[in-house]
């Protein structure tokens, strides 16, 4: 495993395999938050005293870190949000509500997370643009051919997860980005599941907008990022108005709003969260994104090999390039399996993983999900496999 000692929470035998839901936090992330609260608490952009200046420097420093981490052109393209969900709502209600017209087409898939579906469904009812779902192949993956087949002269936007939370498939985003460029289509990327696992380059992939949450990349909850290419982001209309985003207002109704990025960050932000996210980015960078990915793939291979030795196991997505594995054991209901594993302090996720349209495609809507990260190791996988070998014990936890 990589750097397991930095994750105190794992010291007591906790086996955490639910990293697609959220990740554990290394000491340095927690320390950076505590330091803000104990050593230099102040609001950002508001004062002339030392602590306030220190906060400004830290806060804006994280914008720079994010910019470099995703290879954006400018810090103006980085907006701090509450997380992916808010980022997507801003993109869709702040930008697409003006950009899209009746009859336009938006391409999604049935494997997308609720936060990249529901805002679209809601807005399409108001505006009358059409949502088309790119067909998934027999392994629930998006192929370039399927994307091409769905593009028409009405296609204005393609909005996809880089890695889906339910299946863990990695989409060919570089190629899709190229297609978008050639066809004058905006490419919206949901990087929530990939940001902590793969190197992302917004320029190389021709990304117009992107959203992610810090808590899935070793950072704190309640904070995330909206990225937008500057000339496009300029046209995103704020959906929140208040302090920090205006330059002037008066009783005759006049008001003026700031330039990017402040315009899109109304009110006191989650300063501690932003600082913690910066620390998570430093941490990931120091370990190395390639190293993390390679290690996860090695673990995944081990996981699949070991899982295959379990009687009556069904694996749904063996050959994808992420640390997500879906399975079912015999006819046991996924939640019964998850509750059984809890006795061994093994945390897995049961259910439909917030991709509620996926059951229209996948035959079993309920699955158990293991999602790996850098601090997991082979011994943990062995313990999972041992527990699942004793299948006749699964329902012992009923009473």
């Amino acid at each position, binding site marked *: 495993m990589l750097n397991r000692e930095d994750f105190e929470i794992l010291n007591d035998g906790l086996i955490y395999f639910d990293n697609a839901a959220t990740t554990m936090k290394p000491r340095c992330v927690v320390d950076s938050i505590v330091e803000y609260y104990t050593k230099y608490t102040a609001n950002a952009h508001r004062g002339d005293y030392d602590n306030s200046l220190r906060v400004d420097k830290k806060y804006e420093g994280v914008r720079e870190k994010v910019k470099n981490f995703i290879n954006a052109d400018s810090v103006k393209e980085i907006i701090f949000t509450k997380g992916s969900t808010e980022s997507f709502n801003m993109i869709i209600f702040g930008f697409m509500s003006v950009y899209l017209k009746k009859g336009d087409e938006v391409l999604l898939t049935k494997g997308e997370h609720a936060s990249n579906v529901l805002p679209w469904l809601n807005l399409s009812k108001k505006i009358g643009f059409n949502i088309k779902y790119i067909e998934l192949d027999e392994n629930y993956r998006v192929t370039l051919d399927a994307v091409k087949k769905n593009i028409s002269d009405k296609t204005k936007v393609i909005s996809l997860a880089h890695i889906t939370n339910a299946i863990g498939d990695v989409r060919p985003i570089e190629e899709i980005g190229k297609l978008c460029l050639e066809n004058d289509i905006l490419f919206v990327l949901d990087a929530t599941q990939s940001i902590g696992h793969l190197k992302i380059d917004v320029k190389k992939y021709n990304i117009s907008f992107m959203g992610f949450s810090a808590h899935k990349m070793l950072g704190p909850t309640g904070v995330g990022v909206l990225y937008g290419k500057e000339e496009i982001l300029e046209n995103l209309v704020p959906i929140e108005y208040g302090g920090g985003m205006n330059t002037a207002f008066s009783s005759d109704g006049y008001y003026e709003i700031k330039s990017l990025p402040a315009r899109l960050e109304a009110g006191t932000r989650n300063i501690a969260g932003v600082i913690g996210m910066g620390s998570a980015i430093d941490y990931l960078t120091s370990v190395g994104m390639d190293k993390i990915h390679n290690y996860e793939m090695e673990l995944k291979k081990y996981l699949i090999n070991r899982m295959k030795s379990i009687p009556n196991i069904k694996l749904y997505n063996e050959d994808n390039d992420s640390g997500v594995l879906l399975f079912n054991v015999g006819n046991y209901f996924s939640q019964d399996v998850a509750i059984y594993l809890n006795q061994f302090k093994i945390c897995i996720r049961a259910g439909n993983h917030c991709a509620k349209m996926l059951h229209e495609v996948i035959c079993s*809507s309920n699955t158990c999900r293991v999602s790996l990260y850098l601090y997991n190791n082979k011994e943990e996988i062995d313990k999972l496999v041992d527990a699942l070998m004793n299948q006749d014990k699964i329902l012992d936890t009923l009473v």
Partner: protein
Amino acid sequence: MDSNMKRNLILDNYQNPVNRGIPKDNSYKKVNSKNESCVDNIDVAAKIVDGKIEDIKFDGDACAICTSASSVMTKELKGKTLKEAKAIIRNYQNMINELPYDEDSLGELNIYNEVYKQPSRKNCALLPMSSISKIIDSVE
């Protein structure tokens, strides 16, 4: 009843549920319930005639507790008047929620009297009752 016996009864109702399968018959009122915190998804249908539950069925995709509780519930509520049924439902809900309840009215449903120890299971055990409650409310 000891835990082992309760477990066996739950398992039996899970693996061989009774009254499963919803008839295509307009005289049945049907309600779908989903568990907001997990993925249990069941339908309950009841035929109510002259203030009495003449028949009750369920179907769906749910965990062992939810499926078995649906099965036991149909057994306990079939043939009851709406007044009796409502008393059973209230008692059962109280049992799951650790409130005072009348054990004698619950029959086989008493096998769920330890579910409160596993908070994540509570909603599973309550789901079928919430469906039949909705049906009763809709006819009253």
